[in-house]
């Protein structure tokens, strides 16, 4: 009972609840939800709670805090209009909307958009960043707490194809990866003021990966990945605690699960960080598990790598051994998310496919045609799954 009270108190202090989906790939940054009431038989007539129009494009995922859904978009002349919108999770009605003007470059590849990075929340603040380097922090009611123009402050911090690294918030710091070929850095911004708590020079390489939080250390560490490998830093100070320098992908991000970090490096590499912050031990390296644009996902004792064409490869988390492959209807950009034993994969053509990973060779048990291009990773909260396209947001839940 005391433990429960302590957990509730901590949860309240931290501001996050169990059902919240506060960042890219959910509360643990790995796309997995332990919710059991997410629908597995997707059907618009039965499962659509609501859908709503969005005022602009975006690849960012919705994040959900309590009964509110937050989405970012970009639109207007040269996508210089940046949106942060709050919807009521119950009925999809807009609660508030804030718009900003980009202060940095908005040029990006036609397939992506300025609203590519997913915002993040500590339960009290919603922090959004855009490809232009503009970052805003609002409270849950839309009150503006701070604004930063990282692309204005650091004029060569941009990528002409667009930036897409999502944010994480830990220990009162927002970690923003602004890594590119020119003025490349990762910064820790004070969540209360937006000022730099630290700023690390980073390799001059195009990089679209997102930071992830490792929670199994005595204190949290943020893992920052690039083509050289990964580093783990203290969120409060930016101090590098350990480094893995055997290379890494610049597109799919690492996946933390069960105390192990699965890094898209030479296929996939499983690293087990020491609990005292020691350099991680390499558990295995699997060339046959090679994610494309989507990041890997762990479901129980299985790890999944989805390539851009739609081949889903299942491997063993313990050894990296390949178990089976399943062809889905591709192509894919969005990272799958998982609830229980089910994997939710949405193709660029807007076909959501539910894979039952408990079947011996995996099996697609349901499909839902959303009818629009979708490059955004879905989100899960309170038994519902959210999809977003460049013009719409859907909430799908059990009938």
């Amino acid at each position, binding site marked *: 009972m005391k433990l429960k009270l302590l957990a509730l108190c901590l949860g309240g202090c931290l501001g996050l609840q169990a059902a919240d989906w506060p960042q890219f790939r959910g509360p643990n940054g790995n796309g997995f939800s332990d919710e059991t009431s997410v629908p597995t038989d997707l059907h618009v007539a039965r499962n659509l709670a609501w859908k709503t129009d969005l005022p602009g494009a975006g690849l960012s995922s919705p994040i959900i805090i309590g009964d509110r859904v937050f989405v970012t978009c970009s639109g*207007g*002349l040269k996508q210089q209009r940046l949106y942060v919108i709050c919807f009521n999770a119950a009925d999809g009605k807009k609660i*508030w*909307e*804030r*718009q*900003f*003007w980009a*202060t940095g*470059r908005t*040029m*990006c*590849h036609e397939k992506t958009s300025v609203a590519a990075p997913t915002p993040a929340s500590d339960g009290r603040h919603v922090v959004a960043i855009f490809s232009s380097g*503009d970052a*805003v922090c609002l409270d849950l009611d*839309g*009150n*503006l*707490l*701070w*604004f*930063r*123009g990282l692309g*204005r*402050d650091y*004029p*060569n911090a941009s*990528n*002409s*194809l667009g930036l897409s690294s999502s944010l994480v918030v830990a220990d009162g710091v927002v970690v923003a990866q602004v890594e*590119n*070929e*020119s003025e490349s850095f990762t910064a820790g*911004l*004070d969540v*209360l*003021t*937006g*000022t*730099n708590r630290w700023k690390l020079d980073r390799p*001059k390489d*195009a990089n679209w990966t997102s930071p992830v939080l490792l929670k199994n250390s005595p204190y949290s560490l943020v893992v920052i990945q690039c083509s050289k490998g990964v580093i783990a830093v203290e969120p409060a100070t930016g101090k590098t605690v350990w480094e893995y320098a055997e290379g890494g992908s610049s597109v799919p991000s690492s996946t933390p699960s069960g105390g192990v970090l699965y890094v898209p490096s030479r296929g996939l590499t499983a690293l087990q960080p020491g609990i005292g912050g020691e350099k991680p031990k390499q558990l295995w390296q699997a060339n046959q598990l090679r994610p494309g644009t989507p990041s890997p996902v762990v479901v129980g004792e299985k790890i999944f790598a989805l390539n851009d064409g739609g081949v889903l490869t299942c491997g063993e988390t313990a050894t990296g051994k390949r178990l089976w492959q399943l062809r889905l209807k591709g192509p894919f950009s969005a990272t799958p998310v998982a609830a229980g034993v089910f994997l939710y994969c949405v193709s660029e053509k807007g076909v959501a496919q539910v894979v039952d990973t408990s079947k011996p060779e995996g099996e697609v048990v349901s499909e839902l045609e959303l009818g629009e291009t979708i490059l955004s990773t879905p989100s899960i909260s309170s038994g519902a799954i959210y999809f977003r396209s460049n013009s719409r947001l859907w909430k799908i839940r059990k009938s």
Partner: protein
Amino acid sequence: MSNRKNDSLLVKLSLGILSVVLSFASASANPPPEIAEPLKMIRAVGPEGRGNREASAAWKKLSESKAAMLLPILEAMDGANDYALNWLRAAFDAIASRELSSGAKLPLPELGKFLLDTRHNPRARRLAFELIGRVDPSTTDKLLVGMLNDPSLEIRLDAVQKAIDQAGQSLAASNNVGATLLFQQALSAARDARQIDDIANKLKDLGQPVDLPKHFGFLTEWKVIGPFDNTGNKGFETAFPPEQKIDFAAEYDGKTGKVRWQDYVSQHKYGMVDMNQPCGKLKEVTAYATMDFTSDRAQPVELRLGGKNSWKVWLNGKLLFSRDEYHANAEIDQYPMPAQLQAGRNTILVKVCQNHQVEKWTNEWEFQLRITDALGTPIVSAVQAGAEEARGAANNSPRNN
């Protein structure tokens, strides 16, 4: 809203503009006392989060204001930096949304007057335009007709689009002469590269091709020299002789032998200066291009560069900006650089680098450059303008009739 009401608003807007013009300076300088301090706090924000903490408290207070404060917030945008503009617009949006949903009366005539006074901040005027449009879209639609040359690029974009649509309707009605005139009017006002391309394609179909390099004002006549070495991309930071002194008579050791300055004229549709042409298709190389631009007066301008290669630009020996990125993406006006032209001759020097990549999509070794005002209106060298004027006079002389 009825047409009568629309007309009424338009009349009010027209009558009100004079009084706004007269009160322009004092309105911005003297905001209502209840929001003077929050506005001051917000206008003090700056780079790297400077002033954010104070601005946050000020924003909360400001955003709780009534509709009457919408205009002073817009006025506070005059002269505000880009960080402050975002704080102010967020407060404006918050108040406007709340007041609209509560059914409160908005100060539409005052917002309209603000909109029509083009000396105000263009983005603030766009906010006024959008808020009026939320209440009375037919009026803003009518206003667009007279806003083709508006200093707000967003308003101008909409006005040009309206003109394009009207030209399209003439075209659909087989009124080619009318369509041509309307497209030409839209082209003259357009500053957005996509709209310009769209209009140029339509005019080409109508037998009126547009000289795009001239229309955009790309600088096409250069002297170029290269290749110099850029192995390992180190040439980007290496100051080769043209960075020390521009001497057209000089000869230097280049990467593949002796190099000297040569004339280059771009024939590219979008004014690309393609270094593969004078230097050969090489990798890990760098080259320079220079030209003199004559300005009839000292004036603030923007040098606007587009390209996929790493580059540096100097104006009269001063480095304006440099960019170390290869083969990501390119577009017209990708990098606008504010600069000050001096009266008379201005020397522009561009360094453009090629890296080691061998994929087909990495063949480009080029840049495009133009000089414009802050809106993107091309500024032509006085020498070029004089030559064109002389050509025009010669063509119009009785001898040639």
